[in-house]
């Protein structure tokens, strides 16, 4: 049985590892291009957020070119719009004329539970993987996927630093290491590939960078470089070391697994998310509150500036955006907010980042 899901940065290889270990054939989602976005835009509601448009376009391309029996997506409980993506994917893809089985993972309790869907999913997994071995296979698949996710993210974090020193070399080493992680069949191989890749990337590091900046904001625009017009690469080209303050594994640990029901919660890796800050007290969904809270931490860790990324009209982040000027001033960390939609161009983003970097460097010299 063939399964696919929308691309999401380096996490894609973890999802692939998971489904392949369960016994599915994983259909590699199509690469993200301008065409993906155009397709997504033409089938989406006008004010849908950018991640929805990209992922929808990605699903359409994948289903059209490669076909799939199952489409899997994450659900959610709001108040961010992400949790409702699945409902619209299903309707829109159905209207376009695709036939597929649909998997949406909603939490098994509360107002938005969908037990029937969850049972269907488990039954399908058991059917594909063989009934008797299902639980142990599930655990193994989860473990492998988790190792892959952690390894891929560690490699990416190292790439974002070493790119400031040798762009081509770092990207080559990263691509090779990521491919090895992606192809690894067992957790040991994953570790081995990651270790080799990390060593290679670390060797590229050298000297002090021009500046160190952190990406904060909405998770998809931070995690998937395509969604932010490759901000991280542009910054790397300008000699800036970049750090991402949100990641897929962090999201899983602090939100998905942290809310898992007992006894599942005993086995899952979790982390406590400290979002408390004096500027935005309310949890406005998504990573809105974290975008503000993390600024103080970044200042402490010696970052020179933060780049706040968000899709245009993102409800949690737009709320954070209004609070950020105040937090930025109080904390003493320059922040630039960039909103992305289908109109955003790479050149426009580059100009703004160059101006921002000039200002940050000027400030650094003045303060030094």
């Amino acid at each position: 049985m063939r399964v696919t899901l929308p691309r999401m940065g380096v996490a894609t290889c973890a999802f692939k590892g998971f489904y392949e270990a369960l016994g599915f054939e994983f259909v590699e989602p199509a690469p993200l291009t301008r065409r993906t976005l155009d397709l997504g835009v033409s089938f989406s509601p006008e004010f849908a957020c950018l991640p929805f448009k990209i992922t929808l376009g990605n699903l359409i391309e994948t289903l059209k070119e490669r076909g799939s029996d199952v489409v899997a997506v994450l659900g959610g409980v709001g108040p961010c719009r992400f949790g409702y993506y699945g409902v619209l994917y299903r309707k829109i893809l159905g209207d376009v004329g695709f036939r597929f089985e649909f998997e949406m993972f909603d939490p098994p309790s509360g107002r938005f539970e969908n037990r029937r869907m969850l049972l269907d999913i488990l039954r399908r997994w058991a059917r594909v993987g063989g009934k008797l071995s299902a639980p142990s296979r599930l655990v193994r698949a989860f473990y492998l996927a988790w190792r892959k996710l952690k390894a891929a993210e560690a490699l990416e974090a190292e790439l974002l630093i070493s790119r400031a020193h040798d762009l081509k070399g770092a990207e080559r080493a990263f691509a090779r290491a990521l491919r090895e992680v992606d192809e690894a069949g067992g957790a040991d191989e994953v570790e081995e590939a990651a270790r080799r890749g990390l060593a290679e990337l670390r060797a590229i590091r050298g000297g002090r960078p021009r500046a160190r900046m952190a990406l904060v904001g909405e998770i998809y625009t931070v995690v998937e470089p395509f969604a932010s017009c490759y901000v991280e690469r542009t910054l790397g080209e300008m000699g800036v070391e970049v750090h991402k303050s949100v990641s897929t594994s962090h999201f899983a640990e602090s939100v998905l697994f942290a809310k898992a029901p007992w006894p599942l919660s005993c086995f899952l890796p979790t982390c406590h998310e400290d979002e408390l800050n004096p500027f935005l007290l309310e949890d406005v969904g998504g990573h809105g509150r974290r975008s503000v809270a993390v600024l103080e931490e970044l200042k402490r860790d010696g970052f020179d500036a933060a780049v706040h990324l968000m899709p245009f009209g993102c409800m949690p982040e737009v709320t954070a955006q209004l609070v950020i000027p105040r937090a930025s001033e109080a904390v003493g960390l320059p922040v630039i907010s960039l909103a992305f939609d289908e109109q955003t161009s790479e050149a426009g983003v580059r100009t703004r980042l160059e101006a921002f970097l000039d200002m940050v460097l000027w400030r650094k010299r003045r303060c030094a």
Partner: protein
Amino acid sequence: MRVGLPRGFFEHLHGWVSSFLRGLGFEPVTSDPTSRRTLEEGFKLAFSDTCLPVKIYAGHVREALERADLVLIPRLENDLPMWGCYCCPKSKGMADVARALFGSEEVRIVSPRGNLGEKRGDELFLRELAKALGVEGSLPPLSPLRVDLRRRRSRREGPFSARVGLVGYPYILMDEQLGGVVFSRLESAGAEVVSFLDLFDLSSAPRAPEEVKRAFGKPFFWSWSNAVASVALRMLETEDVEAVIMVESFACGTDAWVGSLLERAFAERGKPFMQLVMDEHTADAGLRTRLEAFLDMVLWRRGGLCS
């Protein structure tokens, strides 16, 4: 002491909160209906990519700050009795946004916490409100939640050319510059308007998420979205309403989902549905043209225009 109540997001609670405030010995003061000036003040304050209602609310907060000693901006998890749902994230974070926008004035902003979606949430919220205002000792009777939506009386007597449903969030429909304009344009074009404000009923609100779930497979996360969608779905069922217009604001996150799902549901049943997106640039002539074209189409479908 005067307590300012800015119109906009939490306007539906004003009647309920006002009577409680009076019981406590405060004088509630509401900001004036949205005018051009409110809009301009709001745009100056909230200059970012946020939606129109946030900008309008900022304008009303400014006015309330001028008029009253304290201004009430509640921190509500949910502003309707609808278990498990939320306010839209923007209205949820409004108290913090206002603190950031008004700087040193923030000491005059009173923001009690609450969740009207929970059992006894209304009572707890009023207690929090009293505490935030520094009232100690015995409280006046805590009245149960009341939702007041300002209904519009039609100024025209029939006969009408068509009966049109008007749906949208109360802070949009009740706003003079947004829903109010649509309402009067529709009336002067000869239509009878049945609005969400007339049909919303607090006692049936808790059931709205289930109605939405039946139609779309999953309830919306936002309580007002559920309320609006359930009324729109009822308009879809009834013969009484010929066509429905949904008034939305530019860059509204929740309406992107609600509007497009309703549009699909209406299209499947062949009933006219229009999403009317309002922003600060919406001009009267453009609005009138769109509404007239929509009404013409409704009449033409019925054969009224051709015969």
